[in-house]
């Protein structure tokens, strides 16, 4: 599969993760979100932006525990909550939010 934004075609794997994460842009995030049936609100962007800044520093997605802690610290206790994150990303913050944020899929026993 692939996503198209303007004349940029971004190849994705069978599950919709970008093959080349350097192609990510906010417009591409919109396209990925659309194919996931997620409409991006400012609240979604809070999560996406944190994921991207964490990835830039550590080259891996944050553990859910770290994501919750940071969300709590930056945006208040009601947002540092697993249920809240699932309400934004029904298939889970670790997988669906990472996909939209243009991060590679986490691998391993998780």
């Amino acid at each position: 599969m692939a996503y198209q934004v303007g004349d940029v075609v971004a190849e994705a794997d069978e599950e919709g993760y970008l093959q080349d994460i350097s192609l990510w842009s906010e417009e591409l995030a919109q396209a990925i979100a659309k194919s996931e049936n997620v409409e991006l609100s400012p609240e979604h962007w809070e999560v996406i932006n944190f994921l991207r800044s964490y990835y830039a520093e550590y080259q891996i997605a944050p553990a859910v525990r770290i994501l919750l802690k940071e969300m709590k610290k930056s945006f208040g206790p009601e947002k540092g909550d697993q249920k809240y994150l699932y309400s934004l990303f029904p298939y889970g913050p670790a997988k669906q939010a990472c996909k939209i944020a243009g991060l590679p899929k986490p691998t391993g026993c998780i």
Partner: protein
Amino acid sequence: MAVTLGFDASKAGQGDPQELPALRPGAMAASKSYPASSAQQQLLGFPGELVDQWQIKAIAKLGELVQRSRALKVALDACVKCGACTDKCQFFLGSGDPKNMPAARQELLRKVYRRYFTWAGKHMPWLVGAEDLTEATLDEWYIYFHQCSQCRRCAVACPFGIDTAEVSMAAREIMDSIGKGQRYCNEIIGKVLTIGNNLGLKKHALAATLEGLEEEIKEETGVDVKLPLDVEGADILLVAPSADFFAEPHIASLIGYGKVLHEAGLSWTFSSHASEAGNFGMFIGSSENMQRVLERVGDAVRALKVKRLVVGECGHAWRVAYNFWNTLAGPYETLDPAYPIPQHICELTYDLWRAGKLRFDKSKNDHIRLTYHDSCNPARASRIGPDPGSQFEIPRALLRATCNHFYDMAPGTIRENTFCCGGGGGLLTDELMEVRLRGAQPRMRALRDVADEHGVTHMAMICAICKAQFTTVLPQFGFESDGVVGVHQMISNAIVLTGSVQAQEYEARLASAGNGDVAAGGKR
């Protein structure tokens, strides 16, 4: 992503865990792992694509493996199709696909072995069910040898002791050697080889994670429990599955390891170089890759000059550690022979508790009604502790010491008869979700029974794969996903750290109870 493909888990989760299903030929033929990419293959020393003349090369590889492994030759020669294994595989019980019967799964390889390596098969193939290696057979190998979790439940039932795990490892090794590898396993092995762990956590990410967890423990207990990384000269090197640094509920057990080691006053460290206990090299039957992964452990032992080697809660890691660490990564000159090399974290904790060095406040787990899932690899492929069967007793003793409400599941579903979680052996990948759900069905039924009868709310285990698999599939079967706990998570909840806020409260309670019930739950 929950792709259930006509599988109604809520309905399937009721009934006798060992109920024989109606036959559904071909039912699982569409469940197929994604293939490894060319780059992923080559990193492991395998061809990137299906090679020219792959039949000839596959048959030659089979011949080489049979030469090398007497166990494999016996497994391929000895089966008389008595049927004892038929109803033992959770993937057959959950799916009804006859090719998931262990003998039928083995037969996919055995029919080819007979054709090329036995006199009767060479001369009268029609008489002995010997068949040429065709593209259709290769395709079936790929599908059905990736629907086996190498759990050995069938091997326990086999009168000859034939181990399907050996056969499925061999089949995967042959497929890798001709360029037909599985993405999930091979991508992960590549990450260990290049970064050091299955997840791809680099040193600075590990350090930041551990620092964050130290803060959490301090907030919870008021005690400075350290989670050291790369400390040269520490006594103990603890090698945990990398999921313990990342996933839920795994992290809670890692916190438990830290608390136990702190309370016992032991000097210890993690290693960023050997930051993975897991070793998927075993799943793909590749001793070369298993050894490459293991070399990191040997390197870390020598570099950090530790005296003891301890393994965290990871099922297949323990199988590899128990059986192969000494031969493939040893000898370890610095290690103290007075301790098991390597030692399971549960045995270490158990010994400390028996020696009176740990106090547990069981009431901290009073909200939990608990059962224990024996993970297949510690149960059937290794031992924890000194005695036969102590791999079953030690974790249960720790759970009973930390929780007032413990109930075992039905006898045919635990200990050496335990079911696989449904995600072991390289199946813990989303495209195999239907296999995973169906494979989990027998365990989910056994859990349902103790939930109904005893109000069980939580299931403890000592395997990172089991934890991840159950966290994903439990909700499908109508349970809460946070009902999955690690043994050291239970310990973490109950342990009374000297000088902690919990200790003050516990000691006050002890004093007012006049050494009554509370003390019984504490030190032995």
